[in-house]
């Protein structure tokens, strides 16, 4: 029997951000661009509005194991994917992403591995990110350059063990950081850091088979005239627009693959969300 494949995204609203709305936009973009695998599972702890439901193939409720229900930055539950994903083969996604073009070929490339992280990300100009501005803890403590923004796993014993370890690391992240990250110890928990630590504890080298996405954290874009130590909203620094057919253009560069926009209000700028919904509506009509 063929193995089931799908994307999984964890979204828990905070007082500031409607993460389910972001997941809804992500799911619509997947439906509109992916030629083979386009199932999307939403993992959440909230009721989902009727208009959002149709974009998801599966909606899974977080159970009582919520690691840190009072946190404003709801990443502490990023160990739940293995237990809650309904798919045999899953691709974890960050919620603040949009699919710009078909990446279906990734699935066959990942098949045969138990897990495949993203090991390199790109700027909006399609350059490989070389800045370690946000990754000093990785660099100084010699962690593998793991990104969980697009992260493949297949259900099997080894990945189950891995996610159990990740769960424990999340639950004890402060002491883990003190022990494992003596240099440039991050003040906040990070899924990327936790997963990288888990790879090291497992004594494994994470495979790099080319998974990647455009990462819009402003300090890694190679800009010379923007002080990385200031809090900069990239959408205010650089012109961006999208076409009616959904193409996203940042600084005159057409975006391809997965676009990790980071700036949470991006999808509401330039009427992007409304036009995405319109295109998705047409897609649904044509599909029926």
């Amino acid at each position, binding site marked *: 029997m063929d193995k089931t494949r799908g994307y999984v995204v964890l979204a828990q609203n905070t007082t500031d951000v409607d993460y389910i709305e972001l997941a809804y936009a992500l799911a619509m973009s997947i439906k509109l661009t992916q030629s083979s695998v386009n199932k999307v599972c939403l993992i959440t702890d909230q009721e989902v509005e009727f208009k959002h439901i149709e974009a998801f193939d599966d909606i899974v409720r977080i159970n009582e194991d919520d690691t840190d229900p009072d946190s404003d930055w709801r990443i502490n539950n990023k160990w739940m994917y293995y237990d809650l994903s309904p798919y045999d083969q899953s691709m974890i996604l960050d919620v603040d992403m949009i699919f710009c073009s078909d990446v279906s070929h990734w699935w066959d490339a990942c098949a045969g591995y138990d897990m495949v992280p993203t090991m390199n990300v790109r700027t909006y*100009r399609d350059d490989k990110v*070389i800045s370690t501005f946000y990754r000093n803890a990785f660099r100084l403590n010699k962690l593998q350059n793991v990104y969980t923004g697009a992260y493949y796993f297949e259900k099997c014993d080894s990945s189950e063990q891995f996610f159990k370890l990740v769960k424990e690391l999340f639950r004890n992240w402060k002491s883990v950081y003190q022990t494992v990250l003596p240099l440039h110890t991050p003040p906040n928990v990070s899924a990327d850091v936790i997963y990288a630590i888990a790879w090291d504890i497992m004594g494994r080298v994470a495979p790099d088979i080319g998974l990647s996405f455009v990462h819009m954290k402003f300090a890694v874009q*190679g*800009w010379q*005239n923007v002080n990385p130590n200031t809090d900069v909203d990239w959408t205010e620094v650089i012109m961006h627009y999208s076409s009616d057919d959904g193409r996203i253009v940042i*600084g*005159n560069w*057409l975006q*391809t693959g997965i676009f990790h926009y980071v700036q949470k209000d991006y999808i509401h700028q330039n009427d992007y969300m409304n036009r995405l919904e319109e295109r998705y509506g047409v897609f649904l009509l044509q599909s029926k």
Partner: protein
Amino acid sequence: MSRGILQFVHNNGTFDYNKLAIASLLHIKYYLKENVSLVTDESTFKQMQQNYSEHVDLYDQIIFDETPMENNSRLYNEERITFKNFNRLLAYDLSPYDETIVVDVDYLVQSDALKLVWDSPEPLRINRESVSVNNLTWTDDKFRGVGKQRISDTGIDFYWGTVFYFRKCDEMKAFFDHTKYVYDNWSFFQKVHFTHEPNIRVDHILSMSIHAFESNTLPIPGNSFVAPLPYDRLMDIHVKDKVLKVCANGALIISHAAGVQSLTKVQGLDIHIMNKESIENHFDKFVEIYG
């Protein structure tokens, strides 16, 4: 299929462009042994005939172009001077060749590497990276040494129009038409591409047009419109650097003032000499070696 080199020469009152052109021509004929045609205006050519009559016959064709050119002033060694080079955007229409290499007169060919461009699958060959021959970054150019060069901090890739190859085909006709469109609508494109340089620059127009043709479509492997030249980056010396000496075998001794002061010997390497006076100063030696 006809092939040749195209030079654009229009005196601007600051440099003796004819002198630069002849120096460049002698290098090209020596190393590439290809036909060279000259695009010029009546006034400039008259001066060339007066001053360099013994070399004019080396040109394959003289093509007169009197297209009025907007004054294009740029800082050159802290002095603002005027360049007359916009008719390079007419290269497609003016070139008598099916395959053309456009070479600036301050680009000294010292190898036969450019011959490798003939029959290129890509209709356009042009470099987007450059490096100083002493491999040092420029201290007064903030876009240097930080990866790719861009036309602005957040903008698109910078391509050097100093030397480029094109093959006549429908795609290239459309490309050059687009460059004229950018030129005619410069204030719009300047804003769109966040260039803060006050004046139009041919390099920028080429960069914007390449970007329009190359980067706003999904990449298709093996179907590229543009590729680098055989030397995949433009080698240059800064306007503050000087050619100290031209050796008997043609090697250039360069004194670098930009960045760290140093000396470099350059031989067998095509090089963009931004300090135009350096070419003028050593003209007689070039004639002696290559004439």
